[in-house]
């Protein structure tokens, strides 16, 4: 029973990370109807930036904040420079650009920082047993941080004018323009925000999986699974899906399939969702208007 509870808690901790990346994916999807396949690699690059800052002597929290801001800027730049001209391009071309971005980030990360696996420090490590040994320092800290980020994002979208404008631009760009909203810039902000969220997720996951250029591929896959499970057009659903998928992964990893098939499990979840309930648990049914 103790093992189960621990796995549950650990699942929630990793779930928080999946939920964050799923949120980033859904934010961009809602606004552009495209999935950012490069989300993982961008987050990895950001995490390396944080690592470099820490190596240079910056305090951990400063590194985290700085990285989030830098990632925000990078996200905005990518939208303005690459995505905006592709606005009316065919879907295939847009997917191709995402793939190109993915390759680019993956490669320059390896080029600048090297391919050797590096440990990443966590500010939450403590030897004192927490919650009766149920959870590690990092797991607790990571969960707290991701929950805080999710709460901040939620508050931003619900209660600020800018957040409202961004939601309007995503839901109905034509009407948004009619009330004077600069839809293009709203998209750019959305990208920036998604990049920043991805950066935080990367920094949270790095101490667990160790820092290497391909570290986010598995996370990205699970974030996809979570977003689909929750409903790809529903941010709250995607977050719930992320947590759910984290718990499923951990429990199934221990009690069912073992740790070597984690990626396959994600695939199974994805295929399962598509077969049984394509709109996800909380999404709207997929209806195509003729």
């Amino acid at each position, binding site marked *: 029973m103790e093992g189960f509870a621990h796995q549950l808690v650990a699942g929630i901790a990793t779930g928080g990370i999946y939920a964050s990346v799923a949120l980033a994916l859904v934010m961009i999807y809602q606004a552009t109807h495209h999935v950012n396949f490069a989300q993982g690699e961008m987050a990895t690059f950001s995490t390396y930036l944080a690592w470099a800052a820490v190596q240079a002597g910056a305090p951990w929290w400063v590194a985290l904040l700085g990285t989030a801001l830098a990632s925000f800027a990078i996200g905005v730049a990518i939208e303005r420079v690459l995505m905006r001209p592709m606005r009316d391009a065919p879907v295939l071309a847009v997917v191709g650009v995402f793939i190109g971005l993915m390759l680019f980030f993956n490669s320059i990360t390896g080029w600048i920082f090297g391919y050797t696996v590096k440990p990443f420090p966590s500010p939450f490590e403590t030897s004192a047993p927490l919650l009766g040994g149920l959870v590690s320092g990092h797991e607790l800290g990571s969960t707290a941080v991701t929950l805080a980020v999710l709460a901040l994002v939620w508050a931003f979208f619900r209660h600020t*004018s800018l957040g*409202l*404008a961004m939601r*309007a631009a995503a*839901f109905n760009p034509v009407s948004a*323009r*009619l*009330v004077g*909203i*600069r839809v293009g810039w709203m998209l750019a902000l959305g990208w920036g925000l998604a990049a920043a969220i991805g950066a935080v997720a990367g920094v949270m996951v790095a101490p667990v999986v160790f820092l290497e250029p391909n570290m986010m591929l598995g996370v990205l896959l699970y974030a996809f699974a979570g977003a689909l499970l929750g409903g790809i057009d529903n941010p709250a659903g995607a977050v719930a899906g992320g947590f759910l998928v984290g718990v499923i992964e951990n429990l199934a990893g221990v009690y069912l399939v073992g740790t070597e098939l984690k990626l396959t499990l994600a695939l199974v979840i994805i295929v399962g969702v598509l077969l049984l309930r394509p709109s996800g648990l909380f999404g709207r049914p997929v209806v195509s208007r003729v």
Partner: protein
Amino acid sequence: MATLLEVRDLTAGYGGGPPVLHGVSLAVEEGGVTALLGANGAGKTTTLRAVCGMIPATAGEIRFAGERIDGQPTEAIARRGIAHVPDGRGTFAELTVEENLRLGAITRRDRAAVAEDFERVFGLFPRLRERRRQQAGTLSGGEQQMLAIARALLLRPRLLLLDEPSFGLAPLMVQEIFRILAHVRAEAGVAVLLVEQNAALALDLADHACLLETGRVVLQGEAAALRRDAAVRRAYLGY
């Protein structure tokens, strides 16, 4: 009275296809109401869209308060004080009534005036105040129309573009909306370019009228005169 909106020889179409409008010219006075009439497919909605920059003008000019606005992006035109209530209402169905209204005022900086306008709008449309936390998509057709007009008013526009406000509404609701429009026009001095298929109602409200047929202006003049001229009414307006 000064001319607020001037459309001169406008030619426009959709997506590089053949033009829908052929040299349309019309004007709206400061604080006045101009009705744009015509059958389905005459180009009335297209004219409004061109004014808003939603479709490009291939020839001709559009001037607002003397400045050219053709070629500008829609959001810039909206910020100049032109509020468009499109056909189909254009409400944000997933957002609440209150959020929809907030969006109307989202580019304004004058907080106190915005609060005033909210009160005014709730006064005009008490039903919206009742349903302020409801999701806009769940409102009835008439309520959505009210919401769309209210949102447009919250821009504190100088010019209001209305595309078929009576469309799909029960007669009582239509009367209500036109009563409110008359009230708004009298009180706030907003100029209105009104596209309507219900010519009778439109001519009652308007100062000037303009009749479109297959993208061309075939008749233009004072609304009162058109209303009185039985021959014109029967030939062009069907009543």
